């Protein structure tokens, strides 16, 4: 008898069908990984179990949780079930906690809602629960507020709230997606331990096969609101599952390799930010985001820059692009400085472009695609006008696999993957030497990401481009770069040929990163 049994679940919001005939089962002590790209319906499946669906959603089929027929239960009965027999952890730890309540209170609330305990008893038990999730009250006081905690710590608090009453089933919806790799590894380890200790069932939802593969007992692959197949990782056979696996570890073909002449040269660069002053008369402090960094990028090279959030990699990118002046050191492109006096050097800037992470925020929604793509022409002293300008836009769009006609459309008519291609077209239009890819593929689904990586490789061959590939995702960096820099706390702690660094990391931090990075087990 399964702990959770979902049979033929259908779900629609209004006239839109979200789930079609979903069947899944989780037994006690088992971890079921649910994998799918965005829009596959994996989160909606979880919310159906909790019956916390958005307004206007209606579901049919059968969900049995620990003997309860969930779809037949009244809301009041569901409230008794949630938190007591089933707990849930969500993706975004930064917003999942009430900012106005201490973490101790929020954990104790789970107990107070379901049991007839006094506040003091509940608080005492909350301390115990926090200790179980590695937040011992001695180190992280339960009287703290969420904003005083790191992302990983907040996610632990969320887990504590969900497991405070030792529920039979825990649902975790992308619990580590918003976290850095090392934190992700810790949280996954914690979840695994809790499952083992309590004999709890775990429904672990993720877009990342690597996260789930070596942790889940069984894996369900979802696509377009259906379950494609369910089984052990090594038993997955469906073409879609295999395509997902290939895409998440995709290595594009690239003929070109690094030349011998450096394009970009970064020497002893320092970037400080002022921190809030202490008191009215105190001096503002300084935060050193980039600390004496030096490296070169050779012409035609794909250089990777990896590091966790806050390590200074985006600051470094802005400094290279001439968006912010550095406090010390020199950044030169072919020997010319990026910053000339206190002015950004236009002659240098027109030879560099950038693609950002967020496909939705990268374009002015009120501009046509053509106008956005042509924007970097502003850097030229004599930009093409009229037909020549149009022709350049068409060429750039065709270079990234889109149609020249797309230039008349607005950005909301395109998907995330297409938007990143358009962003690339915008970067290509002034034929730069160097393109900085700042987490440019991080927000994309794996298959879209794989095609984007192929496109990047193809372009770098055809147009002899140089890339600085900034990413937190080690497997992607390993597959696409020639050389890699590892950054921590504003410093480069290790640098070398990508393969060599990954096979034999020298610095302990690099080792830690590589160990923590989720990987697909090698299948036969």
């Amino acid at each position, binding site marked *: 008898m399964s702990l959770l049994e979902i049979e033929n679940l259908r779900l629609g919001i209004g006239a839109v069908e979200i789930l079609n005939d979903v069947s899944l089962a989780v037994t006690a002590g088992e971890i079921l990984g649910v994998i799918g790209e965005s829009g596959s319906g994996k989160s909606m499946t979880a919310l159906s179990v909790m019956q*916390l669906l958005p307004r206007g959603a209606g579901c049919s089929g059968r969900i049995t949780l620990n003997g309860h027929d969930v779809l037949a239960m009244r809301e009041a009965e569901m*409230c008794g079930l949630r938190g007591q027999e089933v707990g*849930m952890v969500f993706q975004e730890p930064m*917003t999942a906690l*009430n*900012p106005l309540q201490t973490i101790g209170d929020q954990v104790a*609330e*789970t107990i107070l809602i379901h049991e007839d305990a006094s506040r003091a008893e509940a608080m005492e038990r909350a301390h115990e629960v926090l200790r179980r999730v590695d937040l011992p009250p001695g180190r992280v006081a339960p009287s703290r507020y969420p904003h005083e905690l790191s992302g990983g710590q907040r996610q632990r608090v969320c887990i504590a709230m969900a497991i405070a009453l030792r529920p039979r089933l825990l649902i975790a919806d992308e619990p580590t997606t918003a976290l850095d790799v090392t934190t992700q590894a810790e949280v996954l380890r914690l979840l695994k331990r809790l499952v083992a200790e309590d004999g709890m069932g775990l429904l672990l939802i993720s877009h990342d096969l690597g996260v789930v593969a070596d942790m889940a007992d069984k894996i369900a692959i979802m696509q377009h609101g259906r379950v494609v197949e369910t089984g052990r990782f090594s038993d997955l056979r469906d073409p879609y599952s295999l395509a997902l696996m290939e895409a998440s570890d995709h290595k594009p073909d690239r003929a070109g390799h690094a030349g011998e002449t450096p394009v970009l040269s970064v020497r002893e660069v320092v970037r400080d930010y002022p921190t809030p002053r*202490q*008191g009215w008369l105190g001096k503002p402090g300084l935060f050193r985001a980039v600390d004496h960094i030096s490296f070169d990028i050779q012409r035609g090279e794909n250089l990777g820059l990896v590091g966790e959030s806050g390590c200074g990699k985006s600051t470094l990118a802005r400094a290279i692009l001439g968006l912010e002046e550095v406090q010390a050191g020199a950044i030169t492109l072919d020997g010319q400085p990026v910053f000339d006096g206190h002015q950004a050097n236009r002659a240098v800037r027109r030879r560099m472009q950038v693609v950002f992470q967020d496909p939705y925020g990268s374009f002015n929604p009120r501009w046509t695609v053509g106008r956005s793509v042509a924007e970097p022409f502003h850097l030229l002293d004599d930009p093409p006008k009229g037909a020549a300008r149009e022709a350049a836009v068409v060429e750039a769009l065709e270079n990234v696999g889109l149609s020249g006609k797309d230039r008349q459309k607005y950005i909301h008519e395109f998907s995330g993957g297409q938007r990143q291609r358009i962003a690339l077209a915008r970067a290509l239009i002034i034929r730069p030497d160097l393109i900085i890819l700042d987490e440019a593929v991080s927000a994309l689904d794996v298959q879209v990401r794989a095609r984007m990586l192929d496109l990047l490789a193809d372009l770098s061959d055809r147009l002899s481009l140089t890339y600085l590939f900034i990413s937190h995702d080690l497997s992607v960096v390993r597959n696409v770069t020639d050389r890699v820099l590892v950054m921590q706390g504003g410093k480069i702690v290790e640098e070398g040929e990508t393969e060599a660094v990954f096979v034999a990391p020298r610095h302990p931090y690099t080792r830690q990163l590589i160990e923590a990075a989720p990987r697909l087990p090698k299948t036969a």
Partner: protein
Amino acid sequence: MLRYAGRRLFSLAVSLWVASLVIFLALEIVPGDPAAYMLGINAQEDTLAALREELGLNGSPMERYLAWIGGMFQGDFGTSYTYRTPVSEMIADRLWVSLPLALFALALSTLIAFPAGILAARNRGSVVDVAIMGGTQLGVAIPNFWFAMLMVLVFAINLRWFSAGGFPGWSEGIGPALKALTLPAIALALPQASILARVMRSALLDTLGEDYIRTARAKGLTQGQALRRHALRNALIPVLTIIGLQFSFLLAGAIIIENVFYLPGLGRLVFQAISARDLIVVESVVMLLVFAVIMVNFAVDIAYAWVDPRLRGRR
């Protein structure tokens, strides 16, 4: 927390200082010679000189400004030219009408708005919500002084439940005084309550859409519990802002409503002073009202920190 309060206190002092400068410039420097302005064009030179002497207008602007500010610190607002009495006494009497009226209205508007806004948010899209929102739509659009006139027509002239105007004074006891302020306070409160109810509703709906509400629901809280324990306090932050802003509207509104009910408040005083060209009185009343508004906004800032722990740690 102390640092936050200290910083607010500092900006409070700066605001008051700049506001006093603006008022002084507008009412004592722009008119040229206030004495000539007050007496009109036909005034004799020696009467002018006497008035200047009496009002302390002979010094340099700087000296006059400092004297004005210094006087206010000691409760001395100067002497009214028309009434020949200390302005501070006149204001003190009138303040005991205007301030209770504004506070009465603020209390009423909050008492009406909170339940209405919460009810509407809890039942979003239902008949209750539509009815409440329709009512607030009317309440926002109604000119409060006209509403006051209609109430006089219905409750004072036709039903005779209240007197049509006037104020018995607090010496007659709290009951009659409050009764005289009831219709004015309702008239003042209605539009403000409507605005506040709308803000309350939309702030609650915003917070109800937050992730932490979903987290709370996943813990087993009912919709109502999640609203009471988590959404309300978070929604209070925008609501506090509006309450702070409302107080200045209520004070200004009180001045207008006093006209409808013939209440001897600051409004009556200031309009009489305008027609009598008594700049000293106008200056003092305006300064006092601005002072009240700035103080209330300071109180709101402090209340933010009480509600929101994220502000306490900040500078």
